[in-house]
């Protein structure tokens, strides 16, 4: 067999083996699976994103908007109306939960390093919901664009955004690949579009140098709304499913290329977006202590005075090196 034929047979074998594994067959990973997390036996290294504190462990030395990203929860999706909902594969999923404060963000991060350069991919089966509301008057039936009609539910307009992103660094050059599903705006108007920032995330080192000082509820990924662009003007339809206690899992795949420090592709259910022209702004300044940094994070940000939740049933990180 030629080298190409050997590679084709190897790929076909990998595909056949994966297809027979009910846990992995719902994913489409690159050749080497770095991590597989289904959250039925712990959080698997997904941890609250923490800020950078000084040599005394002084919490006041951290950026204010980096102090409260909330600990992730192992959730059985326990709801007031149906009891335990459970996950897509097993009882548990990982839940990121914001506070009831507009602008508040919950973030969980997975920390690795790179043993090669090339394609890198994160896949997830995920769902987003808003904390159910019990009680109140007629005003509880309307939020922003949505008035309850036994199909649409106001809680859908109370969900702000979720984000999948990297924190990568090699040869001293640090950068982030970022994709955000913006569900609604500050007034509860439905947006439902993918977005990306055109600037790098403000870092604690930059604050240390006096370049910024953001408040508690700033958008840590890119605080200025003018620094965000829509990936596509078309609305991204999805399955919130009418009320805050019905959970339908969505497939997400985000592929990047570390050899070119670029975005490659985003898949959300059956919609595929070509990201090769979507910029990945690097930091101008070289970073120490981060060589071969390979972090992925998920975040959820509420723009309403309601807790927003991002549930991760399972996550796979893979590479082609």
């Amino acid at each position: 067999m030629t080298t190409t034929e050997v590679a084709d047979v190897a790929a076909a074998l990998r595909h056949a083996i994966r297809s027979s594994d009910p846990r992995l067959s719902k994913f489409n990973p690159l050749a080497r699976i770095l991590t597989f997390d289904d959250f039925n036996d712990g959080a698997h290294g997904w941890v609250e994103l923490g800020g950078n504190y000084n040599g005394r462990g002084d919490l006041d030395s951290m950026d204010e908007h980096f102090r409260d990203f909330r600990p992730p929860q192992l959730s059985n999706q326990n709801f007031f109306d149906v009891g335990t909902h459970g996950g897509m594969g097993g009882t548990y999923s990982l839940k990121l939960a914001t506070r009831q404060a507009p602008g508040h963000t919950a973030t969980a991060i997975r920390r690795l390093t790179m043993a090669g350069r090339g394609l890198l991919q994160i896949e997830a089966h995920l769902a987003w919901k808003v904390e159910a509301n019990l009680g109140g008057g007629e005003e509880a039936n309307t939020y922003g664009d949505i008035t309850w009609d036994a199909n649409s539910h106001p809680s859908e307009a109370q969900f702000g955004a979720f984000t999948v992103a990297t924190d990568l660094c090699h040869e001293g050059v640090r950068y982030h690949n970022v994709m955000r599903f913006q569900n609604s705006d500050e007034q509860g108007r439905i947006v439902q579009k993918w977005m990306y920032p055109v600037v790098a995330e403000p870092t604690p080192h930059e604050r240390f140098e006096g370049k910024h000082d953001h408040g508690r509820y700033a958008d840590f990924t890119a605080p200025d709304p003018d620094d965000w662009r829509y990936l596509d003007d078309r609305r991204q339809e999805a399955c919130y499913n009418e009320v805050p206690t019905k959970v339908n899992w969505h497939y997400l795949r985000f592929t990047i290329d570390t050899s070119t420090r670029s975005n490659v592709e985003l898949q959300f259910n059956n919609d595929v977006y070509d990201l090769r022209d979507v910029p990945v702004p690097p930091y101008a300044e070289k970073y120490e202590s981060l060589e071969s940094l390979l972090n992925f994070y998920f975040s959820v940000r509420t723009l309403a005075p309601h807790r927003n939740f991002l549930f991760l049933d399972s996550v796979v990180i893979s590479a082609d090196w």
Partner: protein
Amino acid sequence: MRQSQSAVMERGVELVDVHETEPFEVAWAGEARWYVQFLQPADDTQVEFRVQISADGINWLDHEGIAPISSTAAGWRSIPVERFGHWLRLRTTRTSGVGAPTLRIYLELKE
């Protein structure tokens, strides 16, 4: 090996009157322990801790097996919890004094 998780529920919140931790899902855990550290103590101030449980993460009631715990607002306190169901939170109330201590609150969970 038993699964475990330590969650930092607050890392310096100021207690003005009443503080309740965010709802936390604990269905997988068999035992829990709260730790409270008064980062900024208030020696003339008394507080009361109540461990609370919930059926839905929205409505809360006091854990019937743990009496309210009174404490000065200084140092560390620890509260073990068993038979707590699927949700936990800690309610802290300033019961006397005018100080505004700051609290770091951990929830430690184990199968």
